[in-house]
């Protein structure tokens, strides 16, 4: 679960990480009401999960409470522009209004889990304000890393060492170790997968502050912190995740793409290999779909409908390896699903192998569905039918 900036900053406050003075508002009038006259200039930021707010004109400055209201109105009037994952963009439901900071430097600071060392890794760079991917391409040497031994935990020397190594401006030095300690504490307290401060700014009056906040919490750990339930309900799922959830699948089990060959497979690895097979056969897949364990009629029907109703699939390639799940059960599921669906019908290419393969094939044959022998053949046939 990715948190909005204002939620991330709420956590930052709990850990004593300095954030700009500000407030969260769900309506322009409310935003104006909370703007106090002692702040010479405000910055109004759309609260969305999609990236690229600045470029989309969703971060704007305002000099008076009236100005805050009109700027907030403008930002909330239109959704974020669409991208591949969010073809409808993202509605702006609220804004964060903060004092504008006199920024002189921008740095980067984050904590994540390193797969190779199986340790939390703290990353720091003097190049803040741009994507870390971009930094790692353009200035890989600038990223200082520390892999924390969790048995020992965080100690301020780690922050000091990182600040020197990353050649942060000396103005950062005093505040930095406590800020890193703060994200380390939050990382564990709330079971985060990523906490990123980008940029961590240094102001002309010597303050070090988290100007943005990106927090990704581990969905599997949410049960430990029921307080996040409320936040979770306010957060938009991306469309694919929402569709998957409606179909009774895990949010990671379904993704849409631009092609016209629909795919359904069991197991994430086989589902990915199925997409690869379609591409190898010269076609384009319309989706990734892992039906998960078991493949009864209801589940197969939900998956079929999910793909034909929400992608440009002109043909459906169903690729099942019966391991624990038996092929005859799957075949029954497919036949029943196709007989009961009210969605549009597309040609089917079915490949069933594994446990009780013969019985499964017979059930399909009796229903006038002819299975193919191999994954490659199935992909080739599906691509041919979609052309």
């Amino acid at each position, binding site marked *: 679960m990715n948190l909005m900036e204002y939620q991330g900053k709420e956590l930052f406050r709990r850990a004593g990480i300095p954030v700009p003075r500000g407030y969260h508002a769900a309506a322009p009038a409310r935003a104006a009401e909370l703007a106090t006259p002692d702040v010479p200039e405000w910055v109004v930021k759309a609260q969305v999960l999609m990236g690229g707010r600045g470029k989309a004109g969703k971060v704007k400055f305002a000099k008076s409470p009236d100005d805050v209201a009109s700027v907030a109105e403008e930002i909330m009037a239109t959704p974020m522009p669409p991208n591949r994952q969010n073809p409808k963009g993202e509605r702006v439901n609220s804004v964060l209004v903060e004092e504008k900071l006199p920024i002189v430097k921008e740095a980067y600071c984050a904590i994540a*889990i390193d*797969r190779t060392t199986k340790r939390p890794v703290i990353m720091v760079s003097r190049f803040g304000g741009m994507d870390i991917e971009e930094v790692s391409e353009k200035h890989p040497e600038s990223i200082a890393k520390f892999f924390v031994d969790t048995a020992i935990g965080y100690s301020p020397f780690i922050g000091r060492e990182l600040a020197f190594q990353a050649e942060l401006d000396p103005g950062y030095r005093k505040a930095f170790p406590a800020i890193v300690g703060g994200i380390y504490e939050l990382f564990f307290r709330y079971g985060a997968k990523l906490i990123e401060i980008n940029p961590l700014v240094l102001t002309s009056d010597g303050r070090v502050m988290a100007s943005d906040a990106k927090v990704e919490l581990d969905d599997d750990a949410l049960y430990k912190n029921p307080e996040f339930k409320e936040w979770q309900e306010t957060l938009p799922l991306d469309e694919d995740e929402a569709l998957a959830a409606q179909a009774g699948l895990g949010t990671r089990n379904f993704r849409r793409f631009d092609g016209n060959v629909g795919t359904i*497979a069991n197991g994430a*690895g086989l589902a990915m290999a199925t997409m690869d097979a379609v591409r190898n056969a010269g076609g384009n897949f319309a989706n990734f779909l892992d039906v998960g364990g078991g493949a009864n009629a209801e589940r197969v029907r939900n998956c079929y409908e999910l793909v034909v109703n929400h992608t440009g699939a002109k043909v459906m390639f169903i690729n099942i390896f019966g*391991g*624990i799940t038996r092929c005859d059960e799957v075949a029954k599921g497919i036949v029943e699903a196709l007989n009961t669906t009210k969605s549009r019908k597309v040609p089917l290419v079915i490949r069933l192998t594994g446990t009780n393969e013969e019985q499964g094939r017979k059930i399909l044959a009796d229903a006038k569905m002819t299975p193919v022998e191999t994954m490659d053949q199935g992909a080739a046939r599906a691509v041919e039918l979609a052309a």
Partner: protein
Amino acid sequence: MSIFLDKNTKVIVQGITGSEGSYHTSRMLEYGTKIAGGVTPGKGGQKTEHGLPVFDTVRDAVDATGATHTCIFVPPPFAADALFEAHDAGITFAVCITEGIPVHDVLRVVATTPGMRIIGPNCPGLISPGKSLIGIMPGHVFKEGSVGLVSRSGTLTYEVVDLLTRAGYGQSTCVGIGGDPIIGTTFVDCLREFANDSQTEALVLCGEIGGSDEEDAAAFIREHMPGMPIVAFIGGMNAPPGKSLGHAGAIISGAFGTAQSKIAAFEAAGVPVADRPSAIPGLLAQRVPATV
């Protein structure tokens, strides 16, 4: 020989009276796995439907049976605790089937259970065909032989094994290491064992996009296993960056973990990468004749 388990390996099942645990215990017994009993706190002294003894604690189970291996089916909130308990009772090998364990729990477990090898979590387990099976793999797909296999996936593994068996390649041990970002046993850990296994004459590695386990494996092969015939496959070659597909670990961020980087690493180590699962037996045949 084989790696990690053989026909005499004594196994207990944590969560043996749950529906998953009970069902797969039956399958493992059918396959010939020596299951000595199981653990369900509060049900100590009872017998399972298979007639196996149930113990309240792992320690009781180990004391009474001498088991060295455990297979864990307990729900995610209790899985880390089950692993700690196994470690404390002297278990040296734990297969964790449970999916959805908080990643911080897994981090804590792998950092603090020295001396206990953990397969998974979120994995199908492992099998030494003809000898023993721990986990949820469909035993009848496998056939005893001399090809070792390591994979991050479940069904894709069965697919590949099926292709191997049909092409005349039996298997020594097949390990499903799991698709999560943090796992107890990596490709390299398995390679170390296979390098010293007399039964294993060739290897198949089924990797996936995301992380750098495959790159690490390639580096290890280059240095330590130059003579071993090895074929690799990378799932998700056509996956887009930034989104995980099913497996939480299958995510490409930036330049890391792409199929291209993994293929390049394997090829630099002299390991051909099959462009599709069905090409694996052919690539293997160029290096080692079919044995079964």
